[in-house]
């Protein structure tokens, strides 16, 4: 489940943060915004992280243009993180082998490429050959074969039922086009042929481009928008300004005080929805270093964190404290209520935290700071990338909270690449870290406490930076991968939650919100809390569902 990152991450320099504030105060004035232009049926969407576009509609490229995977190409199925349900898309139906060692997809027979040729199983097979070659991954996938023109069989080398969703999310490309490309990895695909609703590139300029209707779309009744226009902005402030001024219809970058700066200018049409279904944000402790290998220390530190303050100061109150299952709200249907209700170590309790640290053998010294068993003071650092101003506030709140239990925490905020380098090699003390976020909680728990994802310090890790592995959890995860029965998976996930609660592999802080706001001036039919058929992200797989649901206002 891809999702948009908090827009303050990485690509913005400090000055533009100030600019954002300027934009906000500058536009909070008493005038009425110029609400909406005359509708021409074109859906306008800003992109805040690039000042210019260069043509690249190659879905295998990590830097493909926005809407490549959303409007031009389509996957076999689309999972809606709001409900956890999979919506059949190019794949009409599918079955997972009971032992989790393979998947069979039945394709829709009425799908045509935008050049008029029919889409068949051969296209799917060649797509996976290309994806494995160019992007890597799919290590469990041993063979992909076309059984007949509408049936594709995926054989796995090991039991791996979560593979269904990874395979289902892969966008499919036409074999008859890509087989003629000499180097697919370096192909920019300026005139893409896809199955998506909007495939025709027009008016391609450095500052904007338009995608017009696919003349051969398989759901013509769902092509109500006449086209999509993407606009480039160098930073949030410009994109927010265009949005507040009514020049664009849909925006999924972070907007500070959105109620006042955006909604208040036209409450009848302007709405926002920030569901907290993004990945869980954690404070990870490097368990290869003492005293973080002690579960009681991890729990005590967690109890000293004021998560309400973290959510209010660090995340503008757009989220809420995480619970002891570690799971984000996107996994609401998986959560075991009995565990959630009995959470203790994720609730603020400074007295208990102090008591636990005393009992664990970390006495307070004369200056109020506790002493480690090595005789050194209980002092360490919390890493966070310098570009993520929101997460830096989070780290500062935590550092302040730690004073109450005699733990000295210093915020270290160098550049993200340096931070990630420390995470990956296992040299960090503690840090603010995102977590795996896929269709089922399998990937999340694998990255939290599987022994298989633990690598030695010095070897680069791509998940489980805190290097925690639990034998029982590893067995449970393997069992989950080996079954395709939803009821059995549910039972296993309950046990995983209990294990997470018992071992406290990392300190979950809050589920991250998925930003999204829109205007009903020109289009209606947006996903809402009452009708959560997708998120309001314009860069996730559910974006396709939004694009095929919107209707222009007459």
């Amino acid at each position, binding site marked *: 489940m891809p*999702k948009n990152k908090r827009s303050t991450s990485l690509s913005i320099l400090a000055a533009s943060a100030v600019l954002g504030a300027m934009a906000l105060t500058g536009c909070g004035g008493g005038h009425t915004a110029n609400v909406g232009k005359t509708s021409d049926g074109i859906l306008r969407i800003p992109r805040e992280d690039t000042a210019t576009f260069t043509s690249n509609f190659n879905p295998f490229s*990590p830097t493909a243009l926005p809407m490549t995977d959303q409007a031009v190409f389509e996957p076999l199925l689309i999972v809606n993180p709001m409900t956890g349900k999979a919506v059949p898309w190019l794949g009409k139906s599918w079955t997972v082998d009971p032992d989790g060692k393979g998947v069979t997809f039945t394709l829709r027979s009425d799908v045509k490429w935008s050049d008029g040729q029919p889409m068949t199983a051969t296209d799917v097979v060649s797509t996976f050959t290309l994806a494995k070659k160019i992007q890597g991954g799919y290590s469990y996938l041993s063979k992909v074969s076309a059984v007949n023109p509408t049936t594709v069989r995926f054989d796995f080398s090991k039991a791996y039922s979560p593979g269904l969703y990874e395979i289902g999310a892969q966008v499919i490309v036409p074999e008859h086009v890509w087989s003629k490309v000499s180097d697919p*990895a370096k192909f920019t695909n300026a005139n893409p042929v896809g199955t998506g609703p909007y495939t025709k590139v027009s008016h391609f*300029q450095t500052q904007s481009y338009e995608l017009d209707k696919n003349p051969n779309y398989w759901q013509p009744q769902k092509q109500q928008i006449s086209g999509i226009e993407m606009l480039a902005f160098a930073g949030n402030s410009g994109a927010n300004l265009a949005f507040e001024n009514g020049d664009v219809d849909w925006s999924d970058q972070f907007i500070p005080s959105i109620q006042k700066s955006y909604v208040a200018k036209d409450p009848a049409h302007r709405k926002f929805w920030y569901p907290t279904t993004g990945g869980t944000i954690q404070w990870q402790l490097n368990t290869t270093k003492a005293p973080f290998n002690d579960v009681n220390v991890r729990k005590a530190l967690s109890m000293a964190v004021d998560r309400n303050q973290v959510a209010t100061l660090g995340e503008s109150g757009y989220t809420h404290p995480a619970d002891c299952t570690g799971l984000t709200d996107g996994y609401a249907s998986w959560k075991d209520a009995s565990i959630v209700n009995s959470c203790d170590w994720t609730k603020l309790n400074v007295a208990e935290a102090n008591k636990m640290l005393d009992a664990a053998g970390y006495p307070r010294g004369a200056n109020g700071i506790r002493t480690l068993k090595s005789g050194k003071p209980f002092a360490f650092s919390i890493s966070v990338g310098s570009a993520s101003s929101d997460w830096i506030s989070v780290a500062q709140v935590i550092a302040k909270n730690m004073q109450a239990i005699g733990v000295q925490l210093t915020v270290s905020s160098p550049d993200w690449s340096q931070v990630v380098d420390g995470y990956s090699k296992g040299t960090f003390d503690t840090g603010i870290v995102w977590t795996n976020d896929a269709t089922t909680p399998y990937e999340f728990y694998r990255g939290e406490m599987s022994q298989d994802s633990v690598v030695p310090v010095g070897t680069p890790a791509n998940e489980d930076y805190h290097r925690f592995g639990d034998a029982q959890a590893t067995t449970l995860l393997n069992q989950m991968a080996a079954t395709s029965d939803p009821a059995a998976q549910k039972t296993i996930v309950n046990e995983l939650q209990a294990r997470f609660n018992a071992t406290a592999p990392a300190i979950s802080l809050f589920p991250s919100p998925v930003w999204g706001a829109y205007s009903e001036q020109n289009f209606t039919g947006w996903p809402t809390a009452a009708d959560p058929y997708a998120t309001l992200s314009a860069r996730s797989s559910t974006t396709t569902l939004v694009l095929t649901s919107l209707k222009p206002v007459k």
Partner: protein
Amino acid sequence: MRFLLRRLGFYLIAFWACITLNFFLPRLMPGDPVSRMFAQVQTQMRPDQIAALRQLFGLTDKPVWQQYFDYIGNIFQGNMGISLSRFPTPVSSVISSEIGWTLLLGATSLIIAVVLGNLLGIIAAWRRGRFLDSVFPPLLVFVGSFPYFWLAMAALYLFGIVLGWFPLNHAFTDGVEPSFSFSYVADVANHLVLPALTIVLVSIGGWMLGMRNTMIATTAEDYITMARAKGLRSGRIMFHYAARNAMLPSITSFGMSLGFVVGGALLTETVFAYPGIGYQLLNSVQALDYPLTQGIFLTITTAVLAANFLVDIIYVRLDPRVRVS
């Protein structure tokens, strides 16, 4: 001629030093492009894709000296490589798609600021203590010392939002096909007004003050008194005798600034969402996109050196003393 050849030799050495620094500086930054990209997209990328991505980007473990010679060789073949943050677009196409707007904005605002600033400086010095001289320098220095982004936001708010005279963003109306028609050119000009105006506002004070001060020194020279004694027209003395001699430092600064125009105007691009190379440079540095960073720095280096060489040539023409020495 010998003078020019000597200068040319100097520029070649400077160029070599620049491209060498250009190669080593980005590599001194911590981290590598793939982990940077991974941190940026966070959960959008599967962990098992990282190795494949390294290979795709051609991030090899070749010894640095070998990479260095490959790099030098490629530069002389005009091959700047493939951008990593815009993979698989070649660096040259990324730069060429943006440089046009950067040059338009940068050159327009620079020329307006230089011409207007120098004219004001000449007149202010010529009529010392009068209205122009006592009001403009402090006023322009005052305006120029505003933080640029504040001034730009204020201008955008006032003229763009409240009054609605000028568009809020981009270089021309989105979706319009570029052509050589009057309406398109007018559209581009309309979009250029606010970004260029704000740059002119903050930079003009420096030009005016610089010119005024050298001009005052020149007006005290004997040859000005001589010219007056001959009974030449005041305007002729002002421009042909005083200003021509006072102009030299301004020409040097102009050459420098001209070179730096290709570096883009980061804050202007951010505030007015004007397409250009400044934001791209910032992005490429943050993404550790070595080829693109090197490509942009190379462009800037070349432009600065070329502009300076041009100034040297103009100097020969303007200042006879250079020719003699």
